[in-house]
């Protein structure tokens, strides 16, 4: 009843193949965008913007990147954090070498470097499959992280070994560095994430996305149907790494403001994989839901004892967070192995037929 497409007639092929063919979807999206662009910056506190929304959006972008690889193409990767690091370090090198060019240009350009590295490490994927490939991508993770520590050229021979972000502006407004307010940074991140999500949506719904899904479902059958596996898989690696690279660059420049190589360690890779799986494999909206759950859940659990007035030591809270997050991961997997995106689909179906059961 609330979500019924009856009576919405399409009069052209273009209207029929639109990304959001149902009116309610368009309204819903408009409301979400209005909340994101207007309500949250207006009413949100600094903490909400800087510690919840900005990381959530950046992690969602990374999760979308990983979802392209794992969810759409079926190639399991554990090297995501390494590719994110490539984006961050590329942006750092480019922006310190050519400081006059706008930082946003370099953040987006860094994706190409990350994509190149991704293609390089994606080459074995033609021969290696499944968990064997996951371990092969761990080689990328550890090798890249080693590079961030050992290759001093990457961090401009900085004695601290970390990369620090200088203040840069966009149209005269500071967006990075200590002068940038959370609101400004939030708008930049939101803009990038919205545009890139839209592009990702178009890619995965089009010819390329269908190619990937054919490869995921069975690569030999896809090959017999005339899909060239190597270009398809490498393209998936390239697009995925591009998204991860931009996410990594955003992470350092607009969220953390300084990063050590340990920011890109294996834990981040696992975290993103969680988001993708909990959110739903092969679903863009699932990437957002997974990122929201995995990022916001620990924040809530940490804040809970304090708000309830329970005297719990900080270390205990940290351990309890591990325990609860682990338990919830198992719980979610048992209850809905297809992820939160599947729950959303079920809800939509329920809304469509309500008040009847089916």
């Amino acid at each position: 009843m609330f979500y019924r497409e009856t009576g919405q007639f399409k009069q052209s092929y273009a209207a029929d193949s639109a990304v959001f063919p149902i009116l309610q979807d368009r309204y819903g999206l408009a409301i979400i965008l209005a909340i994101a662009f207007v309500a949250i910056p207006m009413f949100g506190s600094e903490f909400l913007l800087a510690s919840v929304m900005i990381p959530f959006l950046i992690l969602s972008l990374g999760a979308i990147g990983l979802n392209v690889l794992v969810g759409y193409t079926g190639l399991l990767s554990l090297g995501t954090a390494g590719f994110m690091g490539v984006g961050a370090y590329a942006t750092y090198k480019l922006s310190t070498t050519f400081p006059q060019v706008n930082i946003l240009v370099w953040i987006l350009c860094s994706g190409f470097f990350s994509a190149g590295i991704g293609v390089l490490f994606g080459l074995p994927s033609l021969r290696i499959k499944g968990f064997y490939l996951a371990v092969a991508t761990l080689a990328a993770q550890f090798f890249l992280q080693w590079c961030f520590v050992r290759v001093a050229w990457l961090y401009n021979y900085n004695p601290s070994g970390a990369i620090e972000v200088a203040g840069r502006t966009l149209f005269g407004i500071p967006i990075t560095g200590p002068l940038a307010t959370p609101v400004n940074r939030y708008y930049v991140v939101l803009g990038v994430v919205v545009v890139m999500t839209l592009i990702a949506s178009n890619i995965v719904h089009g010819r390329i996305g269908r190619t990937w899904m054919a490869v995921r479902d069975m690569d030999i059958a896809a090959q017999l149907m005339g899909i060239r596996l190597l270009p398809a898989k490498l393209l998936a690696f390239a697009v995925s790494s591009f998204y991860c690279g931009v996410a990594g660059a955003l992470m350092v420049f607009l969220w953390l403001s300084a990063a050590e190589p340990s920011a890109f360690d294996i834990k981040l890779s696992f975290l993103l994989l969680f988001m993708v799986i909990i959110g739903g494999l092969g679903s863009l909206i699932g990437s957002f839901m997974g990122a929201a759950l995995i990022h916001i859940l620990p924040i809530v659990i940490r804040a809970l004892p304090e708000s309830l007035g329970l005297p719990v030591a900080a270390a205990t809270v940290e351990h309890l967070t591990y325990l609860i997050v682990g338990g919830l991961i198992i719980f979610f997997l048992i209850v809905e192995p297809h992820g939160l995106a599947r729950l959303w689909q079920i809800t939509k179906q329920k809304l469509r037929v309500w008040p009847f059961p089916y």
Partner: protein
Amino acid sequence: MLYNIFIDPFVQMVQMPDLLVQTLWEGLVSGVLYALIALGFVLIFKASGVFNFAQGIMVVFSALTLVGFYAKFSSWGFSGHAAAFLALLLAAGVMLVLAMLVERVVLRPLVNQPDIILFMATFGITYVLIGFGEIVFGGDPKQMIASELFLPGGSVDIEMLGGLVSLQKIDIAAAVIASLMIVGLALFFQKTRIGRALRAVADSHKAALSVGISLNQIWVIVWFAAGLVALVTGIMWGARSDVSFALEIVALKALPVLVLGGFTSVPGAIVGGLIIGVGEKLGEFYWGPLLGGGIESWLAYAIALVFLLYRPQGLFGDKIIERI
């Protein structure tokens, strides 16, 4: 440059054979420990098709349980060898309880799900064990009760090839115990009733079910066996360094061992462990300085990757047959 890469290391090896032997020995020893962790992985993968990421944390958890029980006993004034072995038994009991819990809470509801979901579930187990272990035992490193368990300490120096090669006694013990355990497991798999059932399950879940093998029971047994392997690994590794959650990272070292040997092969885990251990130490010692050191962190993966390109299923893995 080329000289430094291709010739100089070998010249060094020939000139100082005692150093070479020492490096090889260290490689073999760490290889044995990698192989032990990989063995736990292989046991579970064979019987339930689960890629058990929690094996690393099981090593830490079992070792912490053992040390924790012993500390409790000695605080009651009960210490020495008897207390240590009682603690060992109790730790094994805890691993049995853990196996039953994992089977009941995690595996049974997730039967027939895709591999990646089960893989993620073992991540959940990892997190739960980390959180639980830190709350119960605390995060600070602990001393392994090596001498109470009759494990030797100190080292023997052997004079050979014009130099001294120093072998830690605990390493020798580790190698001996690991070999005994592998022989024991092989016998268990080949000769006993349960072992035959395990092999049947590894071959085909459905066929095993149809001849009346209880999958649930088998899963408890393999997880318990993997828990025992983890306990032994934890003791050995803990005796070399301290017992702490930092050991968890060692589990990631076992992954290249696994791909090298093949996920389903017990001998593969052993041979893979030795190749990775030796390759890593030799690479770090002779070629590491050229690249600025610290290459141990990824060299194992690079070695595994090179092997994989020639044999995508690992050295001893089952041949991958793809049908449409």
